[in-house]
């Protein structure tokens, strides 16, 4: 019997691995937890995308539960989620935009700030404007501090200004229902 035990080892190892493979089939390999969960929004001091004289700091998140939505006019998926975000806003959800733009890059950009503003206005007029205001992360440093990997991404921030949820990808009704809504209800109560 002892001999068999040794020879059963490969089978046991294989079955053990298969269990995880099975479980892995039903989860998204791209999904990741944020490392900033339950931490305050990192410090920043950035202008409004429409008006560089207005400066925002993390204090803007205090006192109200907020969705911070990372987006850009160049991003196709962002345009897809704009109508739904507008719907949420109409239901009373406060949404702040973190404007993420690559075209202002000194090397690759070809756009002036004026052009970008015109683009934004056009996009929001066309698809709905869910944003209370848009923070302009011109150098994308704050995005980096937030662990943003691209656009669109959405953070749920509680009324103490702490990050409670970080979602990578578009925010659609399914994601809202499964991930955001329960936590949002809890936080707003």
């Amino acid at each position, binding site marked *: 019997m002892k*001999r068999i035990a040794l020879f059963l080892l*490969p*089978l046991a190892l294989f079955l053990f691995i298969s269990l995880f*493979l099975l479980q*892995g089939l039903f989860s998204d*390999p791209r999904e990741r937890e944020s490392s900033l969960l339950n931490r305050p929004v990192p410090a920043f001091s950035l202008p409004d995308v429409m008006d560089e004289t207005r400066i925002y700091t993390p204090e803007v998140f205090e006192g109200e539960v907020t969705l911070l939505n990372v987006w850009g006019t160049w991003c196709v998926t962002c345009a897809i989620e704009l109508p739904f975000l507008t719907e949420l806003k109409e239901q009373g959800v406060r949404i702040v935009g973190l404007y993420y733009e690559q075209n202002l890059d000194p*090397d690759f950009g070809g756009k002036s700030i004026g052009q970008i503003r015109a683009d934004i206005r056009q996009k929001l007029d066309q698809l709905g404007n869910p944003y209370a205001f848009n923070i302009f992360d011109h150098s994308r440093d704050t995005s980096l501090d937030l662990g943003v990997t691209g656009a669109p991404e959405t953070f749920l921030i509680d009324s103490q200004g702490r990050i409670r949820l970080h979602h990578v990808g578009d925010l659609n009704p399914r994601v809202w229902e499964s991930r955001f809504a329960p936590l949002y209800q809890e936080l707003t109560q």
Partner: protein
Amino acid sequence: MLAELGHFSLVLALFLAILLSVYPLWGAQHGQVQLMRAARPLAVGMFLFTAFAYLCLTQGFLDHDFSLAYVAHNSNSQLPWYYRITAVWGGHEGSFLLWVLIFSLWTVAVALFSRSIPLEILSRVLAILGLVGVGFYLYILLASNPFERLLPFYPVDGRDLNPLLQDFGMIIHPPMLYMGYVGFSVVFAFAIAALIAGRLDSTWARWSRPWTLAAWVFLTLGIALGSWWAYNELGWGGWWFWDPVENASFMPWLVGTALLHSLAVTEKRKVFKSWTVLLAIAAFSLSLLGTFLVRSGILVSVHSFASDPTRGLFILGLLVLVIGGSLLLYALRAPQLRSTGRYELLSRETMLIGNNILLSAATLVVLMGTLLPLVHKELGLGSISIGAPFFDQMFIYLVIPFVLLLAMGPISRWKHQPWPALRNQLLTAFSLSLACAALLHFGTDGASYMATLGILLSVWIVFSTVQEVRQRSDGKVARISQLTVSHWGMVMGHLGFAAMILGVAMVTSYSQERDVRMAAGETLNLNGYEFVFLGVEELQGPNYEGHVAKLDVLRKGKKISHLEAEKRFYPVQRSMMTEAAVDVGLTRDLYVALGEQLNNGDWALRIYVKPFVRWIWGGAILMALGGVLSICDKRYRMARLTQSDAPGTSPAGARA
């Protein structure tokens, strides 16, 4: 219409596979010769119907039949004809059809080239292959049918072949790789057949060896081609990334290499039988696992096909049946295997099994490194990444004892090797290599210890190989010609490995690279080479447009090369592709990749000098050639083998 015929033909192939898995096995168990005789024609039929189905799909591509969903997704009217033929394996469904085609090809090869094997054994082997085939055919018909129509609304034009795959390397890489993966199914079938029959004398080891070698040769070339393709096509000058999909091909290779060696021991010395059987099962199991990893979308990788949980579930089920079933059979039958040979602790047997252990440990490293991120996440412990730093570290640890055993094995005797003789030879070879490495190390400015270690190991293998050839020929030149072909196979395989170690060590330690912005006329000095940027021109290809950067390379003021690096844009898939320009050399590659155009009109360029990078692929080719030489050994071509085959006692019997 043709597509429907192809589909029907695949169904017939499935039908034949079912018959193949039942009748010959039944016949073998009950001694009915008629049923056993059915195995060969059934195998041939299975192949012919699969080949017909494959041709139908190819014709669909050549005819631009965009009513076929698979063609519409992977081709385009602008695609040149040669890429339309290779586009058949550009996506999931078609590449699996190629997989099945190659599988049936191997099956038919076993049926036709195994005349010397007793009918009973052959029937079992073919039946096992048939059984595995049933799984494959069911999978392709039920979960990934390439003949699906997009009716009544089909697109006017196709979405084009992934531009990454529009390259010469990609034309031959997948078929080679699949030949290797699927080739291990033959060895697997031999092992399972032997387990079922309870006949695990060393005959099965002999019959399996040429098939193992063949599969291993293909896999070696397939992996090397993949690496070479990535180097040229991905534009970052890397040749190996430890990506899950690369790892998936590397694991069967490692186990296959172990299997080659352990088959040699089992055949000659009738020891390690249960271990060899396990390796035979493992090589194919890891090939299947690799298929699962690539096609289920379970891991994040650059190479993976579109993910689909149903498909993943199907393959996982197949995996559990095939691997689980065979490992269960193994657990029940293997304890009965008795090794009859005797050997001392200091003997060639021990060295070979030692290398087997190290190769298996390396497989375990790759397996755990590939799957642990998944397990880690599923356990709720968070996402981690396991990549080059980890694998490099582990392989450096493993390669040192591996080379030590490689240096000792071939010069040791079977059964018992007296220590003093071995010690003297070992010391000679080692001190010679140490002297070489030290000389190079202290003769080079800013020498890297890692590179020196690589040189030491590489040279050590060369010296010990020379020692071994001298020993076999008693130091007489005349006797060198009497060494068998397969002996030269071993020599070449080992030298190939030495070349590869050298290449890897040099290129990782001494590569130079610069990310630069350049305007026309500007130059970059790198490692004594002067790269002169002549400018960028527009480019128009059959199904792409882009830019080509032209550079001259000067050394000591003399022009030695002209390079044209392309950046292509494929409008249908809206993707950018880099075609690096490489000036190939024995001791260094000069490599230029074109990046973006910057705002002020300058261009971003990546320029590399990669010393000895060719040696990596050269080493792989040498190893594969070694494998080919070993297959050519006349022992495998003997018309009839006696059942009780004498243990290898010839002086040149060094096949390791």
